[in-house]
């Protein structure tokens, strides 16, 4: 196997690992770092694809990915986290080891799904299609199991990363117009969701989205968890009590 395809495989494996790390991460700030790292790996692997297949238009996607997913979106998320003052995210609906096991099942499913497609494809990157589908599904899982708003949005953004990788591995990227459109969509979506966060917190005193399930006009629902009260730092849970 050539060095180029070995490198692409390595980056694909790292992408999968980062998807799992995001699934297991409890802290919001580290989650944003992992998202930025995923964007960086994505840009690197796209650059390798562009170099080995001599597709100059892919370099533009690399630049777009670097600018948007490594610098701009993480910066916006950081700013939002600082303004909302959320540091610690408690466990989601399913505990973390169980989430990981569900993740493994999803990966097996995705690999099986991708196998017939990649047999028909002729690109050098065809074997990584399974990993792309798997990381889309893992991000989707993350959106499902998290309660709080910010991890859900990061899951949404990571899903877009997975789709981008799928496009690169199946057909060497999308046309430039489509790519620009998606990038703009993600950016605007991020800004609108940022406004939503402040509205949600103002209304419910919390970013826990389960409050949104009670849709009633007559009274303001009271916050169920005292954890996310505004302008109050959450104390991290007592860790490692044993000596």
């Amino acid at each position, binding site marked *: *196997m050539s060095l180029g395809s*070995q*490198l692409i*495989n*390595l980056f*694909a*494996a*790292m992408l*999968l*690992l980062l998807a*799992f790390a995001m699934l*297991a991460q409890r802290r919001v700030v580290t989650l944003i770092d992992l998202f930025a790292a995923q964007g960086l790996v994505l840009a690197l692997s796209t650059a390798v694809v562009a170099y080995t297949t001599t597709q100059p238009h892919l370099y533009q996607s690399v630049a777009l990915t670097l600018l948007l997913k490594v610098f701009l979106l993480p910066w916006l998320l950081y700013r939002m986290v600082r303004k909302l003052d959320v540091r610690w995210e408690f466990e989601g609906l399913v505990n*973390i*080891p169980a989430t*990981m*096991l569900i*993740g*493994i099942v999803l*990966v*097996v499913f995705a*690999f099986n799904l*991708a196998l017939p497609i990649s047999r028909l494809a002729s690109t050098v990157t065809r*074997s*990584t299609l*399974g*990993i792309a589908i798997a990381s889309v599904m893992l991000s989707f899982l993350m959106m499902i199991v998290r309660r709080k708003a910010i991890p859900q949005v990061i899951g949404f953004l990571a899903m877009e990363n997975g789709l981008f990788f799928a496009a690169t591995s199946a057909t060497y990227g999308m046309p430039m117009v489509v790519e620009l459109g998606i990038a703009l969509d993600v950016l605007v979506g991020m800004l609108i969701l940022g406004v939503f966060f402040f509205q949600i917190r103002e209304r419910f005193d919390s970013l826990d989205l389960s409050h949104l399930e009670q849709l009633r006009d007559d009274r303001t629902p009271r916050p169920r968890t005292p954890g996310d009260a505004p302008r109050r730092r959450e104390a991290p849970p007592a860790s*490692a*009590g*044993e*000596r």
Partner: protein
Amino acid sequence: MTPGALASQLLQVALALALAPLLIGWVNQCRAWLANRRAPSILLPYRTIRKLFVKDAVVAENASPLFRVTPYVVFGAMCCAAAIVPSLATALPFATAADAIALVGLFALARVFTALAAMDVGTAFGSLGARREMFVGFLAEPALLMVLFTASLISGSTSLPTIVDTLSRSALGIYPSLAFAGVAFTMISLAENARIPIDNPATHLELTMIHEAMLLEYSARHLAVLEWAAALRLFNYSCIGIALFVPFGIALGSDMPAIVAAAPILVAKLAVGGACLALIETLSAKLRIFRAPEFLGTAFLLAVLGMLVKLLLGS
């Protein structure tokens, strides 16, 4: 069975028996240096074992024969494992008797006997340690098997000498699957050897100890044999790690000069590995016992991912 192969087999087991306490001493020395303390002598484990052999053994009144037999069973299992793992040479006549799966079984045999003996006398600490040991063991074992399967998939055989042979002959390539398996294996060997994120080998604090709690009732020669077996277990795990992930330098035949040349390379790799172990232990804090499933679950996940990546990407 050629005389050369037999000699390499015997030399390897003898080297494992001789070097295992030295490895423990080296790790302790590195830990002391990293903690800015004065280090104990590197030969301290040898002296401890000699001292324990001289003393008179005390056995609880209600101890069954199982309690007396266990140290020798555990020691024997570890010696067998040392004979199977190709640390010096791949031409091992004994290794055809057992493959990687049987090796995991040998470790499990030692664990079951230690746990039974710990519960035999009926003290609270023994039972506590035994329960925790089984708890850690049932999580670590499948992950270890998955790591070995990943290497087996690459080389097409579950026999450890064949795996080493294939991996060290193949052209230098990037194996993402082996990288996953390597991280998983490091985590598993920390847990299996009662090292810091799971258990602290230096403490006898009753609430946290796992391995030491099981040995509390033992004294003198029984304890010496068990301590030696624990050192051998660390040595074996290090050798499995070397064989799977950095197999370069292990003699691929049974000619004597190559085997003799492999010995200093092995010692150098073990020294680096021991220093890394001490570094990991110094940098990490002990986990609560209820966090152990998460730690070992991550190891299992990484090992399975390695295998899946191997199946999908073929590398």
